[in-house]
């Protein structure tokens, strides 16, 4: 049984929290550059240019790209041959505390009713998955509030089919307009059950821009949704334009014969995720 040092986990989570917030993915940068070429709105083009400059400043000065440094959403793949002689969850909490403090990241987590801030951005939302092997893969995906507020899960009737799902997704984006800070990235979870569809929608946002679903049917669904969303005209920051969405990712799981769960998780253009395998 392989062991991983507790401090290494803490430091890795902290580093991922900081890097995810300060250094956005090359895939995202390239997608925004392409969007700038395609965008026909002059205001939209200028907005995309400012967004690119912002990414550059954030990286060069190690500043979070957005002041909303998000809820720390942590995906952990645990190799089943690993052994932890300590509290793994607590080590991840400690890593979030350290990263948000040392990275000068904004702490946005509070009690749902009293709104009292926990002051260290804990607790994170952690999703554990057991996998074969003896490696530990940690992904930190900070998620902003403005785009999360525009997300929705619904259990459709099976008769709604794929067209019903597409209509639900497009309608959800249309009702969001400027609020989730377009150009957005859209994660869609299809199937599972009520809560699992939402998990799938979140997990879908971990993919890199341009990565298509391996099943050609769902790859087409992704392409079709992207096209339909970009016909809405919402544009960068909702001020009108051709580029509302940079990409759509669909994740799928089998579901109950009586149900067709679907969830839409919207990400802003500061689409953050960083991974490391120990």
């Amino acid at each position, binding site marked *: 049984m392989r062991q991983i040092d507790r401090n290494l986990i803490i430091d890795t989570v902290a580093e991922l929290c900081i890097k995810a917030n300060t250094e956005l993915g090359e895939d995202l940068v390239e997608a925004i550059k392409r969007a700038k070429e395609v965008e026909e709105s002059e205001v939209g083009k200028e907005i995309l240019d400012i967004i690119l400059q912002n990414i550059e400043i954030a990286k060069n*000065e190690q500043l979070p790209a*957005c*002041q909303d440094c998000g809820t720390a959403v942590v995906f952990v793949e645990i190799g089943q041959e690993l052994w932890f002689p300590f509290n793994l969850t607590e080590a991840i909490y400690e890593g979030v505390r350290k990263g948000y403090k040392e990275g*000068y990241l904004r702490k946005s987590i509070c009690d749902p009713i009293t709104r009292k801030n926990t002051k260290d951005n804990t607790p994170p939302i952690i999703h554990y998955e057991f996998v074969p092997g003896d490696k530990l893969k940690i992904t930190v995906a900070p998620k902003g509030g403005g785009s999360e507020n525009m997300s929705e899960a619904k259990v459709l009737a099976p008769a709604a089919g794929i067209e019903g799902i597409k209509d639900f997704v497009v309608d959800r984006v249309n009702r969001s307009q400027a609020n989730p800070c377009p150009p957005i990235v859209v994660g869609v979870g299809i199937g599972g059950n009520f809560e699992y569809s939402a998990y799938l929608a979140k997990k879908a946002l971990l993919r890199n821009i341009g990565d298509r679903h391996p099943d050609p049917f769902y790859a087409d669904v992704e392409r079709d949704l992207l096209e339909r969303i970009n016909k809405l005209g919402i544009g960068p920051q909702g001020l*009108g334009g051709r580029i509302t969405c940079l990409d759509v990712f669909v994740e799928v799981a089998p579901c109950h014969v009586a149900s067709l769960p679907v969830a839409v998780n919207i990400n802003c253009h500061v689409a953050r995720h960083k991974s490391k395998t120990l």
Partner: protein
Amino acid sequence: MIRLKTPLSEEDILKLKIGDRVLLSGIIYSARDTAHKRLVELIDKGEPTPIDLKGQVIYYVGPAPAKPGYPIGPAGPTTSVRMDPYTPKILSRGVKGLIGKGNRTQPVIDALKKWKAVYFVAIGGAAALISKRIKSAKVVAYEDLGTEAIREMEVEDFPLIVANDAHGGDLFQEGVGRFKVE
């Protein structure tokens, strides 16, 4: 590109039209959810507000912590519509400019026309860039609110877009209408 300096006059305001790009310099004040609630409670009681709102510009922002040597942390706009229930009363005290992100509701659009004020959008998510245009910042009221306290900020060439002008114009509606494909 239009260069403006705060405080804004009625003449400045009436010249602005939706879609205008503005570089704003001078003093502006941050305020978001809870600060708005407190300001409106004072206005309702007929009491003075901790800052004189006349001619001022309010920025909806909750900055990240400042790194050592920086006057402020990354400071991009938050969603404006959450302030809409308070905004007409804030405008009635002479505020001339609002800065945030996202659409406003009709009562705010009407109040902008009535009180001759404008709503600018800053680029949501461009927080690191915006913070470089903020030259100084100090808390002037509601320190207990932390990131949500009212800060007096001196800005230089803050890039903004006029989204709702004092003539009833709405760039969101106009822009999306222009690019929507039926």
